[in-house]
């Protein structure tokens, strides 16, 4: 079992270019001020479920993340979930692809 993530709903609206500055969520009417990593992650998420490994590869290709980097990435995803910008669930598949 692994946790997978996605974003449903309308596209986020960025004050400047995607991944920078304030961001508006039309689904909730909330404005967020994301730090660099959550902002970058928010630009890679779409409505398909993906693990954090798959999300890293969307942005950076095939890379090996050390434990600290992986924890940081998951923490960023968790913060996006708390802000109701993404949702997560536990998946019963181990590999990438649709869940």
């Amino acid at each position, binding site marked *: 079992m692994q946790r997978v993530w996605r974003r449903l709903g309308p596209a986020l*609206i960025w*004050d*400047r270019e995607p991944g920078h*500055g*304030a961001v*508006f969520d*039309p689904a909730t*009417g909330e*404005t967020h*001020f994301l730090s660099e990593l959550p902002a970058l992650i928010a630009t890679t998420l779409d409505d398909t479920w993906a693990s954090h490994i798959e999300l890293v590869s969307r942005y950076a290709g095939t890379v090996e993340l050390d434990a600290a980097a992986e924890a940081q990435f998951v923490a960023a995803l968790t913060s996006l979930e708390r802000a109701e910008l993404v949702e997560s669930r536990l998946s019963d598949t181990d590999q990438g692809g649709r869940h």
Partner: protein
Amino acid sequence: MRSSDAAFFDTLSYFYRDCVRHDGPHFLDFDIRIRRVGGLRRLVRPQALFEIDGLRPFEPQPAENAFPSYEWGLNWCIATSAHRYLMLHAGTVALGGSGMILPGHPGSGKSTLSAALCLRGARLLSDEFGLLRPESVDLLPMPRGIPLKNASIEAIQEFDGAAPLGPTYPKTRKGRVRHLRPDAQSLRQQQVPAVPRWLIFPKYRAGAAESLRPLDETDAFRQLAYNCFNYKLLGETAFRTVGQLVRQMDCYSFTFSRLDRAVEQLMALAAQNPAAAGVPQ
């Protein structure tokens, strides 16, 4: 505006006699009535009631506080209905054609600073509402009496002994209040918008040295959105307008204690900008 209270009309006339129109019927935004509460209250501790379009949104106030009740009641009318505009909780003044926005909550010094800037030649747009048209992002004037509260009254009198102040109301719900009359220039130009140029977040701190510190766009955005009455209501429009504002303005936080130095520093800031034509020296 309707009332049978002669004292109230005397004060209203002191502040706004040049704004009364005698050229026929017009579309009215608000139909306001200040009337005395009836019955025993006519004789014992008389009270005045603020009515808007037949509604009574507030408790009666002591009759002698009719004028501040009217001013605060009118603020309520604007705050609850003018959502065609982005509405900032801010003092706003114009220097030449350029607007200075001073957002802040009660106690920040925005009204006192707005008053002092106007006494040194700035044009009053508003001491309470920064009203902006989202489609053009220009600042709209709404010059009215500036309510000075408690120690701010003495601060303005010390700043300018000839400041045109109305009556003192010693026992309002906000303490002691006295209003600064808007100057003739501000009233004459109340149809002339200003282009927002400076965003200054004032913080009054007794005894503090003046300190004007540039703010980065993210901080400025966050603080300006926080000081916007109808940010959530306007949604994406507010988001885009606030973003545009912080990009086009020079943004600062400003700590001050002495009015004379504060005004000097803000006027000097405005004078650095060659586009701010007509900055009073």
